[in-house]
């Protein structure tokens, strides 16, 4: 299937994303916090210089140059958090989703009688709470 865009990003979102990635890149290079803070302030100043640009063509060009510069200067071993995507411990411990409990054998369910007694009631209460906050779902959304 041809590439259907999943959403349209505004210019402000793109700039903020570039800024955050650039800060993470700086964090990978400078690990002592005070050194990093100094470099982050310098980076912020570079971004602030062109922040009030009203000409969109120039603004897009700055954004493109910024992306290019980030790509050329990205750290070969970026600093990730361990449980985030890209980190070492990502998805080590996987929690099964809640609907798996509905597929348990009755003998297994009998090992936890108190919980399963109230489970149906809790499901109804959950649905009621959801609909109170977000409203009823559209009929067209219930079937592919």
């Amino acid at each position, binding site marked *: 299937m041809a590439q259907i865009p999943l959403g349209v990003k505004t210019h402000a979102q793109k700039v903020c994303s570039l800024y955050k990635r650039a800060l993470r890149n700086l964090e990978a290079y400078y690990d002592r916090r005070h050194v990093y803070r100094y470099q982050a302030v310098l980076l912020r100043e570079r971004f602030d210089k062109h922040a009030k640009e009203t000409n969109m063509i120039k603004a897009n060009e700055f954004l493109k140059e910024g992306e290019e510069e980030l790509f050329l200067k990205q750290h*070969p*071993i970026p600093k990730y958090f*361990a449980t985030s995507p890209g980190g070492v411990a990502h998805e080590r411990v996987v929690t099964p989703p809640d609907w798996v409990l509905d597929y348990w054998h009755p003998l297994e369910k009998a090992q936890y009688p108190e919980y399963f007694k109230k489970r149906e009631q809790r499901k109804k209460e959950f649905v009621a709470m959801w609909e109170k906050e977000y409203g009823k779902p559209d009929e067209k959304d219930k079937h592919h």
Partner: protein
Amino acid sequence: MCFNSFFFLFFFMLINFFFFVYFIMNGLSVFFEWEIISFNSMNIVMSILLDWMSLLFMMFVSLISSVVIFYSKSYMNSELNLNRFIILVLMFVFSMVLLIISPNLISILLGWDGLGLISYCLVIYYQNLKSYNAGMLTALSNRIGDVMILMVICWVMNYGSWNYIFYFDFMKNDYVMFIISFMIIIAAMTKSAQIPFSSWLPAAMAAPTPVSALVHSSTLVTAGVYLLIRFNYLLIDMFFFKVLLFLSILTMFMSGISANYEFDLKKIIALSTLSQLGLMMSILSLGFPDIAFFHLLTHAMFKALLFMCAGVIIHMMNDIQDIRYMGGLSLYIPLTSLCLNISNLSLCGIPFLSGFCSKDLILEMVSFNSFNLMVFILFYLSTGLTVFYTFRLIMYVMINDFNLMMIYNLYDEDYIMLNSMFVLLFMSLLSGSFLSWFIFSYPYMIYLPFNLKLMVIYVSILGSILGFMVSNMGIYSLNKLLLSYNLSSFLCLMWFMPNLSTYGLSYIYLNFSQILFKNIDMGWSEIYSGKGIFNILKNYSVFYNIYQMNNFKIYLFSFILWFMILFIFFFI
């Protein structure tokens, strides 16, 4: 389960120790042979060789594995599948013991293959994407070595049996031995991660830390060195040993440089293991198998200890392995930092620790026997690099400013983990002298000029000064200049060899197979078999359906047709 296996392996270690002392003092060597089948002229025998080398290695393997299992009782506490883990580790130890005691190639193959497959199961123990990729890399790299051993088995059949130890002194100039030696060296290189096959060792750090301590520091990766030590009499004058020297020195140098740029704690230790493996292989290829064995054993001790300390640090930091998050930990885990420091200093070859006995001996033998200038330079440079990254690691982790959140204050040093580390600490302090008294019945006669003798100390001091400087200054800011950015990327990513040997080798084939799959499997073969025949049959049946629709025109037409046929047949 943990305590039972710990006690069993510990007593096994004690038994091996007593037999080792008895055997080496009396110069004994025992060879058991069981005949399984004897049929016409064919014999299948199972043999076991127990000499001092195998008993000593078994003692060290069982000591490290017992301590690691005890350690993993506390480290893997939150694992639901701890029994599976312990059983895998026990199977690993069993394969290793089978490899150590076997004088014939078939049981070596059983042990060798077992090591490779079980290390795959252990690397993919945490089932996330990184572990799967790392496991694939480990298993496939080791598989190349397995194939080489299989081919050696075929070639050795020329001589009538698989007991290789009987053929060394008699068959040196044979062409078959030439081929066998080539394949054995390639097999050892895959297992011990020398240069073309070195990408799996840093990647295998996706395994749990007890696995790294046992498998990737002392047992699996030394199996290749052990195989070459056993085959040493065959290989000693062959050309391939020079190739092995070249490749192992490059491995030593490359991993020393990469460890300086690396920021993942376990990967730094993995690269230091790789560097020491290169050292072992190179001294073996220079013709000193007993020194290589000595370094193998001392290295096993302090490297396992180092991995266990790294495990404590990782536990403390909530699974973070990046050293950029760490700093000033020595105040919070004093006993663990004691073990870390001693094993690091032993790795550097600081005088009178165990690493010093083996490493210094190796470097003095290299200086004493006159070899190539490049060999000399790279040996000493790699030693300096070892000290460099060691001190960098100590600075980042232990000494530098306190870096991370209040998370450190929540940790108590676990007595189970500490007890297991103290056993290895004791051994890592004393095993150097203890082994040198046993293995070398007379010391090597080394006669060096004064400055050459002290060259190790000079290089170590230089390395330590550089290590302190690099961690203190913001020298990494220079990497932002594009001129040195490319160089530092090249050096930190292990000279791009992992990328070349994984993505580089498989990209063309995967691309081609995608083309084949889309065009043939999902394209033309669907038209000519699956969907196509279905469509043809469907269209034919739609067509023939017309004749079953009780169409009057068809009946009239068939009546006229039949009439014409009869007319032609009877009147012409």
